[in-house]
Every structure is written in C-alpha cells, then in structure tokens.
C-alpha cells in the first residue's frame, strides 16, 4: 500500500533528522576510547603512556584495542614508576609529542606530584614561554564501591592550587568524549578526572566530530529557585534529589561545573544572579576542596546577589572506610541534598 502524503512527510522528517543528527549509543569508557582513538588517528604525535594501557587494554578498558591498532610505542605499557613516567610524558611533550598519561587510579598520581606540580605546571613559565607541555593526565578517581581508603581519593582538591594546569571532570559519555578530545588538542597541560562508578553510563552521542569547551560549565537543568553546582558523580545524586525536589514544588537549577580549574564564572554568575541561592554538592573533602574555592570565588564576585549564605555539601573529612554502611555516609546522598535545598529556600 502506498503511504499517505502525511506519512511521507513524517518519514521525510525522521529521515532528515536521522541523517543530520545521527547518533550512536555507547558507554562512557567507550566514549573516552573513541575520543582517544580519533585523536590518535588525526595526529600521529598523540601517544598514550601508563600502566597496563597496552596489551591489557587499560584496567578500565579505556585504551582497549589501541595497542593492536597503533603499536607498542604509541600505546606504551610503562613499569610501575608514576613519577618517572609522568616526567617522561612531560619531557616528550616538551620535545614535540602529545602524550596522554594514564594513572591507573588517580590516587597513584600522588606519586607523580613532584612532576605534576614542578614540571607540568611550571615549565612553560620558567622557560619564559619557550616550551609548551600539551600533556593530558587522566584516570579514574572518586569513591567507588568499597575500594578502601587509598583507592577512593579525590585529587582535584590537592592539585587545584598548582598554577599552570587546567582541570576538568567528565560526567557523561557526551562530555567525556568531548573533553578528552579538547584536552588532547589543548596546548596547556590538562588533568582529566574520570570517576570509577561512571564508566558504564550509557548515552547516545553524535556521530560527527565535536569537542567540549574546556573552560565552560554545563547547564544540566535550568531552574529558578536555587543554583546547585556539582561535578562528576555527584551530578547524578543531585539529579536524583532534583526529582524529589520537583515533586515537592521546588525548581532547582543544576549546573555541572565540569571545569574545576578555572571556574566558569559566567555561567555560574548568571545562575546566581537569577536564583540568589547557591548549594554546592561535591565529592571531595570539605577542607580545601573544590567547594571551598568555589565559595570563595562566588562570594568575591557575586556577594551582592546572594540572599543566603552559600551551602556546601562535601564528603566527610575521613579516609574512606571499607565498610559499605560507613562508605555510604562518607559521601553526599540525595536525601541530604533535598534537606539542604529545603533549608536554603526557607
């Protein structure tokens, strides 16, 4: 049977949308891998270094298949020497390559703090601008499922003071791929924070080439009553709390700040000017965390627009316990977010 003209029109529209906005579905770690692979194809100078990134395919499968495709030198399996192979990545970046250094767990990068702070952040400055360090340092961090204290660290708070580096945190397959590509293409050293529990998130992402701006925040849910600033895994706790809040009649605006250093004060500022109430929900510790810096930045720039003191929900200042019940109360849970918003809006 022939289709009616209306059905022809509808199928034409769907076909056009499919062609123009064609997408494919994948998991977050596959999105990271796709971004990395595309950049490695695009530029021969991009290489990967880290423990078990090559033959093993990465302990979180982000580099799976890349060693077979690009060879052992471009996807380099390093010995367990974080400080030295991060330094090696920096030396390679200074001499023309674009390395992506993987910390098997972000916590291991504490061993590379010397190189990240002294060389990664400083060499462009102390060399008077002669050497650029287009390195990307990435890896999974954050509190997982009973991984123990040392494997549950949040290094964004430790690295945030280092001048000369940028820090971004991905939270969806879309921004994971986009931030990975942008970080690789950037001439600055970028630390890309991934989260252990977000690697299996599924999303449909565009087929065409795209990047996410490293310095911009992401508007997750526009609203009127309160600004909730968050990043990484806490975004999902916030969105879960947002459902409850909407049912209770609140209209929260949720922003995933994405860029942990520097802060996107434009997006954040516009939101503060609209809602006059700010809640920060983060996974790092209260002391010296990203939230602490964010409070300082907002207070400094937008104090006149605030109707209430900024509230910040952070993880407890304790080493993450192994026991599941204790670990659960170490990080911020959706119920606490709901209570905080209710308190803020009183």
């Amino acid at each position, binding site marked *: 049977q022939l289709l009616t003209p209306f059905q022809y029109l509808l199928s034409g529209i769907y076909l056009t949308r499919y062609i123009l906005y064609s997408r494919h579905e994948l998991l977050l770690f596959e999105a990271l891998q796709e971004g990395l692979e595309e950049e490695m194809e695009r530029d021969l100078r991009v290489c990967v270094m880290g423990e078990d990134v090559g033959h093993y395919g990465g302990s979180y499968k982000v580099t799976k298949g890349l060693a077979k495709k690009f*060879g052992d030198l471009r996807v380099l399996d390093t010995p367990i020497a974080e400080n030295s192979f991060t330094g090696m990545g920096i030396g390679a970046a200074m001499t023309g390559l674009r390395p992506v250094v993987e910390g098997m767990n972000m916590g291991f990068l504490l061993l590379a703090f010397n190189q990240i702070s002294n060389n990664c952040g400083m060499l462009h400055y102390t060399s008077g*601008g002669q050497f650029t360090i287009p390195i990307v340092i990435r890896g999974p961090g954050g509190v997982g499922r009973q991984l123990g204290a040392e494997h549950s660290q949040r290094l964004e708070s430790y690295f945030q003071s280092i001048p000369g580096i940028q820090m971004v945190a991905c939270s969806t397959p879309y921004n994971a791929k986009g931030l990975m590509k942008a970080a690789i293409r950037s001439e600055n050293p970028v630390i890309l924070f991934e989260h252990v529990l977000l690697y299996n998130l599924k999303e449909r992402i565009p087929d065409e080439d795209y990047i996410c701006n490293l310095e911009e925040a992401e508007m997750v849910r526009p609203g009127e009553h309160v600004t909730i600033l968050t990043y990484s895994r806490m975004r999902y706790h916030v969105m879960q709390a947002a459902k409850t809040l909407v049912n209770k009649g609140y209209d929260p605006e949720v922003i995933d700040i994405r860029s942990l*250093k520097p802060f996107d004060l434009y997006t954040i500022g516009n939101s503060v000017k609209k809602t006059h109430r700010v809640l920060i929900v983060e996974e790092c510790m209260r002391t010296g965390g990203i939230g602490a810096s964010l409070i300082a930045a907002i207070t400094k720039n937008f104090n006149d627009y605030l109707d209430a003191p900024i509230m910040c929900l952070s993880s407890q200042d304790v080493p993450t316990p192994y026991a599941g019940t204790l670990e659960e109360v170490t990080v911020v849970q959706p119920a606490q977010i709901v209570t905080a918003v209710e308190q803020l809006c009183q």
Partner: protein
Amino acid sequence: KISTQPFSLNPTSPTSHDRPLVSPVPTSLFLGSTRKLRLSSSSKLNLHRRPGTVVAVSDVVKQKKSKSTHSLLITKEEGLELYEDMILGRAFEDMCAQMYYRGKMFGFVHLYNGQEAVSTGFIKLLKQQDSVVSTYRDHVHALSKRVPARAVMSELFGKTTGCCRGQGGSMHMFSREHNLLGGFAFIGEGIPVATGAAFTSKYKREVLKEADCDHVTLAFFGDGTCNNGQFFECLNMAALWKLPIVFVVENNLWAIGMSHLRATSDPQIYKKGPAFGMPGIHVDGMDVLKVREVAKEAIGRARRGEGPTLVECETYRFRGHSLADPDELRDPAEKAHYAARDPITALKKYLIENSLASEADLKAIDKKIDEVVEDAVEFADESPVPSQSQLLENVFADPKGFGIGPDGRYRCEDPKFTEGTAHV
C-alpha cells in the same frame, strides 16, 4: 615453566632494508628486555654473560697513547675549542660570584668551577638538535650548549633579555633553540624529562618515520641524585626501551654537606648501570680528553640505537655548593688534591707539550673570553627589568586556561591582563 626467548628486536638502524617504507599495521615488535630469565640459580657468576662491562677508561686511554706516540687524541682546532669552552665556563662562573657579592643577582647560585671538563667533554660532541638536561648547576651546561653568555647573564640578573625572560633564574636555564631542556631545582626531576626527550627521538624514528632522527639526550646530575628513586626508575625505562640517552653522573663527592660515602651504601655509582642492563663506566672527570673519549663511545652507542649508558665522572667543585655555602666540612687536603688536577691547567699543559697551541694562542683565547664575559655583564646591566605586564604571560601556552570571567569574556581578553593586574 621457563620463559621463552622473546622475539629479536627489530634493528633500529635507519639503513635496515627489512623495514618497509610505509607500514600501516605495526609488525610484532617486542618492546622490552631481551635478557633471559634464569630460573636456576648459578653459584658461579659467568662474567662473560654480563651485558655491561665496567671499564676504567683511564687504562684504555693510556693504552691508546702508548701504542703510537704520534697519534694525538685531538686536533689543534678541537683543542682550542675545548680550551675556549672551559675558560668561558670558568670565567663566567667567577664573574657570577663577583656579581652576586655586588648584589646584582640573588637567591641560590650554584657554581661549576672545577667541573668544566665534564660539560665541555660531553656537550661539545653534540649537535644542536641533541638535548641536554641538567639540575641547578646549569650555567656552564648552557654555555657549552652554545646559549649566548649574554642571555645567561641577563637571566641571572633577572632581566627580560634573559634566556627565560627573567622568569627562571639561575636554576632554570632553558633554551628551545639550543635544546637545553632545563635547569631543575629539585634533583632527580630532570632525569625523567631527559628520558622523555630520548623517547621522543625514538618515537620520531619509529612512528613518525623520520628515519634519520638520531637525536641523543644527555642527562647531567650529581652523586646525591643517584640515591633518588627517579634515577633508578629512569635507568630501568631507558634500558628497557633502548632509549638514546646518556646518564652522566657528576660525582663531586659532596651533596651540600653530605659526603657521598655517608649517603650511599655502594659508592661506586657506575656499577649500578649493569644492574639495569646498560654499561657503567667510570672516568676521571678532571681530564677533558678522557671524558671526551668516553663520551664519544657513549653518544655513539645512543646514536646507533644500542641504548643508554651510565657514565660516572669523578670530579670536584672548587667552590662551595652554592654562594651561600660556607664550605666548612670539606677537608683542605682534599680540596688541594683536586685543585692540583684543575682540568684547565691539565688541558693547557697537554696542548703546549704536544705543540698543538702556543702560550700566545691560549692567552689570546683568555683575553677573548674576558671580553665576552665583560660584554655579557654590560648587556645584562643595561637590559630592562620585566614590567608588571609580564607577570601573567607564559603561565599558560593558551591563556584561555585562565578561564571565563563573570562578564562572559575570557580573562585573557581583559585589558588589565596585559598590564599584569587582572584577576585570574
């Protein structure tokens, strides 16, 4: 289960005919150690199987000399070049001391007096594209690598015309043009950077297919660094991947006030090379010709793709650790012993005795260098100090990294940014 012999390494020499011109799919290269894993412990140490032979080079050089009295180690031109470089290093460092006490430079200044043979012996064999990495005692490494004396002196005075625009200082000498990759204040942190530069050289040859890329990297560091983890980690990685790097230990026996013998369980540093699968060589670092002979072999090895070498140079610093060091712990007898082995005096004697140069030639060089150093000081004196506008430049290669301000514009677009007064 006994581990099988891994695949033989693909020859890395550029003239190999086995390598196809274009290989989209990499052949199965084994990137790793080719040493056998011996599971049965052998009580007899078979010395012939050891990959790295430890040689006291002074013996080798003596042998060469005795074979034929007519063959000299250097030509006249080379001799004069070496002499000029060492005199430049010495005169420059002496001038630094003067300028420091006159209040023209500040902070930590570490002088190289007495160690010139190592810098000259090694760096004068390099091409411009070869890289040098040093620690804080880096003025003379910079000068040997042909960074202009003017640029180094200006940097020490903290002027904009310095090699790092006055932003680095004594301990952070960099030159992109001459491939001097620093200048590091923390000991040991330059060694991984040098390993990275060597890795780039190998990568350029094997991945980017620049077949004639044989750039070598030299990493200079001291005896104190040889107890640091980064040293051992990099020895391992360099030997594992056969990186074109030479690790040069400037063993001057003292790490500030810590004697090498009080800090190290086995003070013979060259022995640590074979433990990682590379040759370890000990050389008299007060004799520039001996150092040069060893350097030729080590750099040649790296260029041919045979891997790294560890060279320990026994040397001595005539001055204290830095200009702030009272230098009270060192025995005057030890100082006198090494002062008698001054590398410059030794080379001068060699040149004159072997009729390679006359006193007049050498005096002319002395005078020329004096003028160069004076000129450098004058230039540095007259150069401008950095203005505040320079403060925020060079923090990021891409200044968008300072982020987006409350007004929606990038901070670096703020007019105050170029004045150095913007909030970032």
